[in-house]
C-alpha cells in the first residue's frame, strides 16, 4: 500500500468514525423496538412486543418540559375516549432522577402506560430532536405521524390522525 492509498484509507476511516450518528425516526419508518420498566415500581415492564397489533401513541416527556405537562392531561382524556377501539398511549418519561417525574404524577394521575427511560435509551433509538416529541404508530409498526412540540390546537390534529388510524371510528 503506497502513501496515497494509506492517506485515502485514513480519511475514509475518520469519516466513518465521525459520521456514526443515526437518523431521526420519520413518518413511514418502522418504529424502533424498546423494552422499558414502568415508572411505577409495582407495574410490569412495557415493551413493543406487548403492544403489537395496536395503534400506539408514543410520547416523550419530562417534568422540566412545560408543553409536555400541558399535553399529558389531554392525552389522558383521549386515551379514555379511544381505548376501547384499541388505542394505547405510552408516555415515556426521560426524567433523571425518575422521582421528578413521579412528583408530577402525584398531582396529575394518568391512566395510560408510563415507562421510565432515565438514561434515554428509547429516546436515543427514536433520535428525539426536541421535547415533547410524539409518534403515532400503526398496528403494523409503521410510524404514521411524528409531532414535535405542543401548542394549543395540536390535540385536534393528533386526535384526527388517531381516529384515522383506528379506522375512522367515532
Amino acid at each position, binding site marked *: 500500500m503506497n502513501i496515497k492509498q494509506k492517506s485515502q484509507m*485514513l*480519511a475514509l476511516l475518520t469519516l466513518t468514525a465521525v459520521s456514526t450518528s443515526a437518523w431521526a425516526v420519520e413518518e413511514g419508518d418502522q418504529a424502533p423496538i424498546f423494552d422499558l420498566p414502568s415508572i411505577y415500581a409495582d407495574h410490569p415492564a412495557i415493551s413493543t412486543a406487548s403492544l403489537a397489533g395496536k395503534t400506539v401513541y408514543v410520547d416523550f416527556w419530562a417534568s*422540566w418540559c412545560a408543553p409536555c405537562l400541558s399535553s399529558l392531561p389531554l392525552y389522558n382524556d383521549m386515551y379514555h375516549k379511544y381505548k376501547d377501539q384499541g388505542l394505547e398511549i405510552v408516555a415515556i418519561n426521560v426524567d433523571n432522577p425518575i422521582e421528578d417525574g413521579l412528583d408530577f404524577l402525584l398531582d396529575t394521575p394518568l391512566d395510560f402506560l408510563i415507562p421510565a427511560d432515565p438514561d*434515554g435509551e428509547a*429516546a436515543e433509538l427514536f433520535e428525539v430532536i426536541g*421535547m415533547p416529541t410524539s409518534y403515532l404508530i400503526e398496528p403494523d409498526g409503521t410510524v404514521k405521524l411524528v409531532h414535535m412540540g405542543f401548542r394549543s390546537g395540536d390535540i385536534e390534529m393528533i386526535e384526527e390522525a388517531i381516529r384515522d388510524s383506528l379506522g375512522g371510528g367515532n
Partner: protein
Amino acid sequence: MRAFRTTLLLAICSLMLFSCADVRAWERGYLAREEMAWAPDALESSLNDHIFFSKEASSGGNSAAGGGCGCN
C-alpha cells in the same frame, strides 16, 4: 509522505471533535437545574441587569428566558 502527514493531522483533529459532546433533547433537564444558572442569585442578577439598562440605555443580550429545553 507530506500528504499522509496532512491527512493524519486532519484525522486527529476530526477525532478530537468527539470531545465536543452535544446535549441531547432528553438531557436538557440538566440545563434547567438551579446549579446550572450563570448567576447564583436571580434577584441580584435582575437588579444588576436593571441598573446596567438604566446606565447604558440598553437591555438584553446577557441571558435568555426559559429552561433550555428547546420546547418553546
